[in-house]
């Protein structure tokens, strides 16, 4: 036994390669165990959800797709168990543009195409806001001329406007007018001079305190009383005024949040540079404030679009109103569900893409400031 030999041998630690993780912890089984069956409580929840899905999804799929009737008239629809999508197909024109005369179909279509192109241009982000803004301001004027006529085109009465066209029109004009009005109201509310602040508060708070339905009632019943007798305006314009009033009060509150978030130092610095009130507001305050409140501002725009569905209560037939009217057609009775589901899909697509776009804008803004 030699001591020297054992000390000469250098003992060095050679780790064995790690074992692979157990089969149950990786891949699909691992994911299922970690996310769905983690503990008895989670397992019970998962099973409950699966049962719920089993109860809900197959009947809806059957109704909407498998048993649905895609072609044919009212007779073939009556025989099928599922949804009758040919009803929507037959009513599509009414749902989109209301009772607008057939021979002038190209006019709203052209307006619609320009609208879609403008949206595409805005969303792509390739054009500067300075170029886009005039286009957006021009859009309603041009659409009203195209759809309503006058100046060379035959006039089409506003009682014939309806469907999705009306919803979008009310929403776009509402947004374009109520955002600047809301900004003005918010600035007025911030002002420290005697008359303007109480005036703005007196406009904003009562409007925010009452539901849109009462504002619409007021617009449609009381505006005729307010105006002199020889100056009366039609129902659509009155409703649009009501929507703008309602929306501006909410926009003002949103913008006020942004104004309050601006540090005092910014204002002091602007004053020290010798900027006057309007220059300070336009160049320093508003750009920062609006960036702050972009998410709630877009939320308000979505809410405004959803709220246009209330015009049915004062007798305008927007998308939802047309769907309701179409479902009461004697020839196609009993297709409420299809009409409303179609409406829900349209509203959902528009609102959801608006909120997604808002989120993308927020991210883009966050990257730019860094």
């Amino acid at each position: 036994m030699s001591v020297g030999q054992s000390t000469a041998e250098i003992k060095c630690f050679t780790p064995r390669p790690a074992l692979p993780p157990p089969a149950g912890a990786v891949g699909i089984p691992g994911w299922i165990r970690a996310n769905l069956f983690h503990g008895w409580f989670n397992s019970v929840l998962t099973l409950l959800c699966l049962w719920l899905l089993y109860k809900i999804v197959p009947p809806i799929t059957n109704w909407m797709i498998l048993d649905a009737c895609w072609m044919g008239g009212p007779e073939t629809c009556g025989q099928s168990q599922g949804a009758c999508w040919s009803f929507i197909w037959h009513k599509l024109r009414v749902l989109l543009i209301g009772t607008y005369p057939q021979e002038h179909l190209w006019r709203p279509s052209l307006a619609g195409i320009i609208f879609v192109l403008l949206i595409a241009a805005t969303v792509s982000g390739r054009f500067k806001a300075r170029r886009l803004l005039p286009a957006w301001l021009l859009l309603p004027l041009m659409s009203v001329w195209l759809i309503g006529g006058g100046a060379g085109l035959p006039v089409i009465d506003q009682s014939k406007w309806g469907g999705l066209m009306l919803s979008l029109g009310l929403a776009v004009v509402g947004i374009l007018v109520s955002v600047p009005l809301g900004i003005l109201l918010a600035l007025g509310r911030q002002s420290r001079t005697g008359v303007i602040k109480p005036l703005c508060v007196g406009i904003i708070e009562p409007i925010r305190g009452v539901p849109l339905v009462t504002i619409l009632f007021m617009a449609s019943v009381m505006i005729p009383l307010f105006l002199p007798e020889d100056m009366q305006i039609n129902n659509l314009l009155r409703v649009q005024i009501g929507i703008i009033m309602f929306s501006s009060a909410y926009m003002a509150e949103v913008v006020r949040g942004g104004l309050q978030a601006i540090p005092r130092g910014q204002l002091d610095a602007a004053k020290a540079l010798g900027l006057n009130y309007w220059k300070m507001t336009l160049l320093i305050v508003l750009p920062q404030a609006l960036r702050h409140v972009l998410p709630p501002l877009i939320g308000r725009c979505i809410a405004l679009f959803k709220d246009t569905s209330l015009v049915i209560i004062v007798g305008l037939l927007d998308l939802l109103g047309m769907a309701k009217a179409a479902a009461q057609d004697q020839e196609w009775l009993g297709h409420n569900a299809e009409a409303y589901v179609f409406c829900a899909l349209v509203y959902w697509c528009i609102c959801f893409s608006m909120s997604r776009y808002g989120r993308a804008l927020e991210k883009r803004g966050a990257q730019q400031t860094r």
Partner: protein
Amino acid sequence: MFRLSDLRGRLPIILGQTLVAGAVIYFALTLFHNTQANLEARNIASGYGFMAVEGGLPINDTLLPYSPSDSYGYAFLIGVVNTLYVSVLAIALSTLLGVFIGCARVSTNWLVSRLATVYVEVLRNVPLLLTLFLCYSVVLASLPHPRLSLNPFEGVFLNNRGLFLPRPQFHQAFWYVAGAFFLALAVSVFLVSRARKMQDRTGRSFPAGWIGLALVLGLPALTWFMAPRPLDLDFAVLQGFNFKGGMVLKPEFTALLAGLVLYTAAFIAENVRSGIQSVGAGQLDASKALGLKPWLTMRKIVLPQALRVSIPATTNDYASLVKNSSLAVAIGYPDMVSVGGTIIGQNDQAVEIIGLWMAVYLSINLLISLFMNWFNARVQVVER
């Protein structure tokens, strides 16, 4: 001392203010003048004199006794009561559903959180009016006739005439039970506050919460079994083509309630989610490191901080729920706006009715925000 330079600086402001004030006064006077002229030209009376006149309005769903021979004022009051009734119920139910779905959204269970997300995204991006129409004319209309009603629980019937529930009939003994409940509640509130003070002073804890709970549950239960028949249930019974007796929620009311609850719950769920997610991960780690059990972590760490974020947004949602209840007019539930609209249709006194609407809605909103501000002040974490 008066200085001319001061005046020169302030002059544009003063001038501008005067101009604005003058314009506003001129505008208001013109409106007033026009309205007067128009009302006279159309032979519309003004003032609230009509409120005492017999209205003859048919209202089919009332909480208080009502007949068409009652006055306009009383009919309007019925509408106000209906608005409050549906709002209070909807606030309670949507809070329950919203908290449930908000918790589901932050669940670690993938399926649960996905389902909750789908619910929130679908309901938030569809107009409430459409949800109401779907509830009213699709879901309720597709329910069976009274003879084939769904009967999920004993005494509960669901059919296309509405939801029939057993009507509780309270006997005198029931009030003893209620009294016992409130007594137990008062005693346990006292106990809890004493225990908290004692813990603050001496550090010793006293299980006042559990004792209070036992009292609140036990005392009324004890009275219930000792008292002779505190409560009878009047079940709805099928007679002929419809149910008689019991308590009925009419289809319009049920649809309105369901629509409001489903819609508002999606918004409350978002508030709950953002509240819970606003609690930093470090807070949870710290509470685990202190050895707090999950339930205590929830109660002492997560909830106080989450509520601080959720409550202001939820106040707004409650206020908009009350305002949204005015959509009742679209499906024919006789709420305040619906009844008022009918009155306007009969006597054209729009100015007065719209004034009343504004007054009632503004006071309801004021009450909600007062209550929620009080509640908010209680849960705010005091920052050092």
